[in-house]
């Protein structure tokens, strides 16, 4: 238990507590409900972006198909609740994780055979297949109309229908996922992923089965994306093919890069930035265009994202 660890833990606890109680202490503010909604969505996408970060930032696998697992998880949560006739969190969230992980296993098995830009192309194409399935399997997914009427979950009789209750659930899950990723990042597994990113050839020469390592990261990231997807289904009470679309994959990638790939805080910041642009910008303004320009600017001038820029500034 080093001192810096304690300081970091303290900051995390403080920030999270403030966040989790936000609806309460901001109740007097007239935009409180709106802001709470935005924060919920930011947290959901922070989970999504953080899961992608495991692939892009840690393992160095630039995936442009991550929405397949986000949307896949969302659909699974919605469909499972309907088919099993229960709103228990365990059922829908469990279904989301299992389906997303299996999907990631299948897609990942093919995808990890490629590296770099080819991997990117492949994940893009494979995820589009999933999109097309979601679009066409109308009896299952509702097709282009989407799956509406998704219930918010229930845990041991406590339901999360109210916005503020869902808010707490999202905060709790976000914290959990954050802690898991924090642990992974500092573990031997996390280091191995970084090793694969930096020099896969050497990793193999040292005795690491890099292909399986990459696949495991792919599945883990997919499962976590599925969690985010389930939360999204609860949040919007709606799942659509848009949740598995390229646009969502790209948004996730943009979040990771703008925030800072390979860092823990980066994806959260990135999610906050992207969602602010998308939701807070007036609808007349071209959100996607702004996002595209901001993204290009970051790639050219601040490749390490906001976290990288802050680190550079601190060092200077």
């Amino acid at each position: 238990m080093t001192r810096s660890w304690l300081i970091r833990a303290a900051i995390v606890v403080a920030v999270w507590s403030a966040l989790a109680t936000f609806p309460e202490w901001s109740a007097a503010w007239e935009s409180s409900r709106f802001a709470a909604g935005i924060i919920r969505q930011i947290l959901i996408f922070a989970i999504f972006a953080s899961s992608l970060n495991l692939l892009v930032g840690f393992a160095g696998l630039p995936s442009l198909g991550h929405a397949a697992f986000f949307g896949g998880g969302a659909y699974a949560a919605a469909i499972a609740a309907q088919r099993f006739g229960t709103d228990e969190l365990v059922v829908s969230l469990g279904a989301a994780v299992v389906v997303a992980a299996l999907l990631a296993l299948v897609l990942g098995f093919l995808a990890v055979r490629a590296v770099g830009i080819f991997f990117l192309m492949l994940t893009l194409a494979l995820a589009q297949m999933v999109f097309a399935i979601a679009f066409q399997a109308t009896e299952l997914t509702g097709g282009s109309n989407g799956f509406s009427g998704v219930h918010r979950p229930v845990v041991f009789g406590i339901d999360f229908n109210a916005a503020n209750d869902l808010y707490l659930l999202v905060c709790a899950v976000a914290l959990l996922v954050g802690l898991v990723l924090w642990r992974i990042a500092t573990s031997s597994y996390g280091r191995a992923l970084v090793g694969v990113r930096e020099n896969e050839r050497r990793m193999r020469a040292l005795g690491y089965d890099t292909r399986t390592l990459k696949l495991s990261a792919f599945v883990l990231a997919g499962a976590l994306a599925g969690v985010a997807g389930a939360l999204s289904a609860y949040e919007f009470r709606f799942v659509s093919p848009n949740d598995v679309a390229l646009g969502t994959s790209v948004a996730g990638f943009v979040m990771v890069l703008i925030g800072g790939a390979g860092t823990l805080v980066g994806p959260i910041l990135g999610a906050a930035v992207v969602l602010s642009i998308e939701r807070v910008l007036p609808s007349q303004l071209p959100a996607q265009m702004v996002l595209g320009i901001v993204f290009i600017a970051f790639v050219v001038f601040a490749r390490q994202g906001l976290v990288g820029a802050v680190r550079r500034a601190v060092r200077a």
Partner: protein
Amino acid sequence: MIDIRELRRDFGGIRALAGVDLHVPAGERRAVIGPNGAGKTTLFNVVTGELRATAGSMRLGDAVLGPLTTWQRARLGLVRMYQRNELFDPLSAVDNVLLSIGSIAGAYRPLRSPRRAERAEAATVLERVGLADRRAVAARALSHGERRQLELALALARRPVALLLDEPTAGMSPAETERIATLIAGLDRSLTVLIVEHDMDVVFRLADRITVLHEGRVIAEGTPAEIRGDRQVHDVYLGKAIEA
């Protein structure tokens, strides 16, 4: 320990290895020398599995290497040092070595940080290669000689059974060369070492036996004294290197 028979490797029409036989008993220090293009690095690449053999067989102890992947061979204890450094550039020297040590216990420990024992071992290895005071420096910030030392450290940390050293002293100053040579000479005698080198001083100092490669074939093999006196080797090298 290392048993190679009739090893061939073709690249299209080019015979990089044209039937190499190499038998290195356990614990021996065997140097592989030959002019540029003789196939030395290709030999290493085929033995470690990064290149597929066109024909022939390879064994490490009792294990047949042919069907195994590079990482499977490494897990058996066949560890290599590269001629051109393959390091983890943005990571510190100690983090580099930790990755090597981490491979022994396996990668799937998502809830464990490297144990104290592993860190201690990393420190020891860095000490041995002379990088103890540079442990926190990023690999890309090290000098060429230091990077070479780190490259060796990565191989040693893996606790090899058979160590393949590809020009360990390439590009080093005399002092650095001396340090590395002493280090290799002091390696435990349970370790089998196969070393490709151009620096003849180092070769004659370290090798128990020398194998000479030329155009993908073994043209001579023997003790340093025998090789020094070998006429064919002499011709192949145009007399320059051997006389040194």
